[in-house]
């Protein structure tokens, strides 16, 4: 479903701030894969996701979604294949627009925007049903401005928006990191529900090792711009945090373990 072939990306090349973020990244996802991605700060996790989403171009290499080479497609065109939830709850929704308007915008992802009505009565009914899945009471507040919602509610809404129009690929960039533990658990639960229900090919970055083990059928660990550990199937199911830390220090060739990686 997703193929990343030998991708390189350097930020601020030729300056003192030069940062080689991706160094020959290779990854292939099968249809229906739910991959959790971990790694220390600066390992290239977010860069990988943003490169796939088209936030910036890559220096070399290819990115394919299904059979389509999207390497040179602008972000808004790739959006027809990709659903996204960001780390920052403010980023995924339009605060000054209503809940139902946000959903209606998302429902038209990948379709031309014409002079037809921006939202129809039939849509409203279906949104009401879908909002019930989130179990946050949003179905009774459909005309409320999104800016009135809490961070957790906004993340849950963004998640629904990302999957309203079935994406070929769902990208979750630490989408629970900015939430308190209870809320984070609830959003994660909704994520699991929605991914299962729609059999979505998903990549989820997380700082929490337990979450990374508990969710998905495959786990990758990034280090220094490439994939250092890749476990799946039975091996992944039986993984412990302890083993994961060992794998990490083997891969990175040091005993130092990033605090951020363990905590979170």
């Amino acid at each position: 479903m997703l193929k990343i072939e030998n991708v390189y990306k350097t930020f601020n090349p030729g300056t003192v701030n030069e940062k080689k973020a991706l160094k020959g990244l290779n990854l292939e996802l099968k249809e229906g894969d739910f991959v959790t991605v971990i790694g220390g700060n600066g390992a290239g996790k977010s860069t990988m996701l943003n490169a796939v989403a088209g936030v910036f171009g890559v220096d070399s290499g290819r990115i394919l979604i299904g059979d389509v080479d999207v390497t040179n497609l602008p972000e808004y065109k790739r959006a027809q294949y990709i659903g996204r939830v960001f780390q920052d709850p403010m980023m995924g929704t339009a605060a000054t627009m209503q809940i139902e308007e946000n959903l209606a915008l998302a429902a038209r992802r990948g379709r031309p925007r014409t002079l037809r009505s921006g939202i129809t009565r039939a849509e409203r009914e279906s949104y009401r049903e879908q909002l019930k899945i989130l179990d946050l009471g949003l179905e009774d507040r459909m005309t409320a401005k999104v800016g009135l919602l809490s961070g957790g509610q906004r993340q849950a809404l963004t998640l629904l928006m990302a999957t309203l129009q079935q994406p070929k690929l769902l990208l979750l960039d630490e989408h629970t990191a900015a939430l308190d533990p209870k809320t984070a658990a609830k959003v994660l639960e909704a994520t699991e529900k929605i991914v299962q229900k729609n059999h979505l090919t998903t990549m989820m970055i997380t700082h929490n090792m337990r979450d990374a083990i508990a969710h998905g059928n495959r786990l990758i660990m990034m280090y220094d711009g490439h994939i250092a550990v890749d476990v799946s199937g039975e091996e992944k199911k039986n993984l412990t945090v302890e083993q994961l830390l060992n794998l990490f220090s083997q891969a990175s060739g040091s005993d130092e373990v990033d605090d951020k990686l363990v905590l979170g």
Partner: protein
Amino acid sequence: MTTFFNALPGAVSQGLVWGIMAIGLYITFRLLEVSDLTVDGSFCTGGAVCVTMMVAGFNVWVAMLAALLAGMLTGLVTGFFHTKCGIPAILAGILTQMGLWSVNLAIMSMKANIALNVNNYDLLVSLRYLQDVNKGERPFYQHPILVLVVFTAVLIAILYWFFGTEMGASIRATGANENMARAQGINTNVNKVLGLALANGLVALSGSLLCQYQSYAEINMGRGAIVIGLASIVIGESIFGRVFRNFALKLASVSLGAVIYYIVVQFVVSVLEIDSNYLKVISALIVAFFLAVPHWKSVYFHKKDKKGL
């Protein structure tokens, strides 16, 4: 005081004309969240095109349509500078505005002003019609206030419809959150250009009405338009903001803001007898004050963010 009351219908008419300009500005300032300085130029473009067309013998509606299209073109230029050349929106607007000075002069055959003799043309609105209706020489439905209220209401209805469509919603989303818009497959550059074109079309339309109302087009007629437009927006929002939540009503409050602005101006000039030369500095200070209020509120009356679900 009597001069003030006598001049009131004129002030209201003028306010309604500028109100359409302010509605255009509202689209860029509040929906797209850019300060578009093109308007100082495109307002005059509208007037220049309208007068030139009418002098050349075209019907008033054709002339106004041409003004609208010319205004949209100026927005297109600013949009091109901004999205395709990567120039910050404010600077892009200033560049277009400056260039338009020459273009507007050229449209008016290099003359600084062109008169439009009221007796020779069928106009939509005119200061003269206002006097004629009062004297009973014209039917009441040609009263500029009535004509302009209907005209504005129709415009608001069209805009209300448009911003409810898929296309209109994309423009609003682009202004509200570009990241979100792109993630939902919206081409934000195209939508910015679209919004700028639409806004400047309305601004030029307003310019075409003003030149009819005052019977001439003049190269300086748009100078300071952005400040008058912003004043109308902030006055309208601060007076009606709590009551008018609906989008159509918000646009109406902008128009009402312009009317109030011109009534206040009339009051300042004819009752307080302040030299009209000081109007610009007074307007600038009023706008600065109202724009500062939200900032002061957030600094001095800061509320803690709520957490959790």
